[in-house]
């Protein structure tokens, strides 16, 4: 079985982020710490688990991103993926999921994948579009927000459970080849192994220049980026830990929330 994983680097969300008014997007700079999108880690883990069940499987991983994004490809190789390809784009600012999807679909179009996995959503752009768009461009059936899967390879079928509202599950059987977007909770992503990571570092990861792949026009663009507005008063407590604690207790008491 041939499986393609599509992964993305995102800026670390715990740290302050900088906005860039010129590109009207999150500033792309090396002050931000970048890592693999968490939902994509689950997709990589799921593929590695499939390979444990079907040892003949070949796992390929691809990312669209700047030179820096090579780091997440190495991580995927360290987790047990066989081959990596880097679709290099030094584009800064907002990159439409449609463009990313078009490049990946073009890359995948002549490779006969049985299964393509992506994360359900990216933590930066948060639209969940890239996966379903790739499926559509390749005329593959697609299931989003997958929380369980089981393959019966002889029948060329995959059984999936999609997570829908309030944790209910929509169950379906899909004919392969298919694309799934993976929801967190489906597995616990492993840490990369040291030996695999060292081996990966010696590899030369093939690079494809995105412009050479396909020219695609963006269909939407950001007009403005800003820090979010407040929906409540957001009173910030000052002082030492115990001063803050006492002030908070006083506020809760005044609101009769301590009983």
């Amino acid at each position, binding site marked *: 079985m041939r499986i393609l994983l599509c992964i993305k680097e995102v800026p670390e969300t715990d740290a302050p982020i900088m906005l860039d008014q010129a590109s009207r997007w999150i500033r792309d700079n090396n002050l931000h710490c970048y890592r693999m999108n968490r939902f994509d880690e689950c997709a990589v883990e799921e593929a590695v688990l499939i390979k444990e069940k079907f040892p003949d499987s070949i796992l390929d991983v691809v990312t669209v991103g700047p030179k820096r994004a090579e780091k997440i490809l190495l991580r995927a190789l360290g987790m047990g993926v066989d081959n990596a390809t880097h679709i290099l784009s030094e584009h800064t600012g907002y990159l439409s999921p449609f463009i990313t999807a078009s490049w990946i679909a073009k890359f995948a179009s002549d490779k006969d994948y049985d299964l393509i996995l992506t994360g359900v959503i990216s933590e930066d752009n948060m639209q969940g579009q890239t996966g379903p768009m790739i499926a559509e461009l390749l005329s593959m059936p697609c299931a989003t927000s997958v929380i369980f899967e089981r393959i019966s390879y002889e029948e060329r079928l995959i059984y999936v459970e999609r997570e829908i509202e309030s944790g209910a599950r929509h169950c*379906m059987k899909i004919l392969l080849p298919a694309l799934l977007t993976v929801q967190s909770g489906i597995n616990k992503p492993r840490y990369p192994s040291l030996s695999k990571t060292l081996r990966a570092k010696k590899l030369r990861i093939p690079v494809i220049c995105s412009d050479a792949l396909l020219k695609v026009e963006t269909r*939407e663009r950001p007009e403005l980026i800003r820090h979010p507005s407040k929906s409540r008063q957001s*009173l910030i407590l000052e002082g030492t830990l115990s001063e803050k604690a006492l002030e908070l207790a006083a506020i809760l008491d005044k609101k009769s929330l301590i009983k």
Partner: protein
Amino acid sequence: MEATVALIAEHFNGALSPTFFELITFANKLKIVTQAKPTIVMLGEEIEEVANKATHFNGFDVIAIEVPGLASYNPETYKAVLKSFLEELKPSFVCLVQTSTGADLAPALSVKLGAACISSVQEISSESGRITFLRSVLGGKAQAVFSAMTDITVVSIQPGCFERADTGACSGNVNVSRRAYRSLRIQDLGVRPGPGCDLLLSEAKVIISAGRGIRQKQNLALLFELAAMFSRSAVGCTRPLSDSGWLNSGSQVGLSGAIVSPDLYVACGISGAQQHIAGMQGSGFVVAINTDHYAPIFNHSDVCVVCDVIEFAPELIKAIAKYRQVT
């Protein structure tokens, strides 16, 4: 030809989805800025009755497409039937709700129609003829305003952002037609119910909620201790915590968990992604404790405490104990 807006309505077991009314509110706002006529589009097996319900209170016409054998959502059938139908209707906007169904459909429809796709929209506005859509990015750390550059735009709205507002208008026309389509590659096997919300959580007056910021499972004990300071309290959590099994999934607050509205909600080490906010924004009073001064949760809090929750919780327990002694 008059411009139209297609509203893709969801329904289940003969009832309209609760978010349908949010879609109507959005459509009314879109109508003001585009002058385009909204039309409700729905698909299903026995569709007429629910189609008649859809036109109440809004006056929009309904086009109901009866597809034999389509008992519930089948992605392949929906995409194929909607594509051929929308190609005829030629709407300027196709609008959905970013539910599990909407999120599944919207990107695929946009590819089929050559349309722009803007997901999880929270606000709509218009400036000198250009229509823009506001949405959260980076886990709520920023908001971006988008515009489309295509003739057709697929827009999905974030649940919980457009409040139901009945216009009281009379009903529109309901047109039922039939199309046959047999899904060849996807077999729908039905829906299995979820774990359901923990009773303690749904009835709690005070919820102490844990996020990834508590770092270790054993730190949960501190939050249970804090919760015990209040009567009718419960401990809730974010998705990553229930994913890792630290708390059961019935304790998860948010879009894919429980929607809660206690008197007091204390968010401990929670970043405040919109999927979490959707589950707790109805709370009476919100306190957030987070090391990151810029954590989005602070924008949705009445009181913000910038510090390590593991150091702060014992102090807060002591401070509350003092008040309980005094009174």
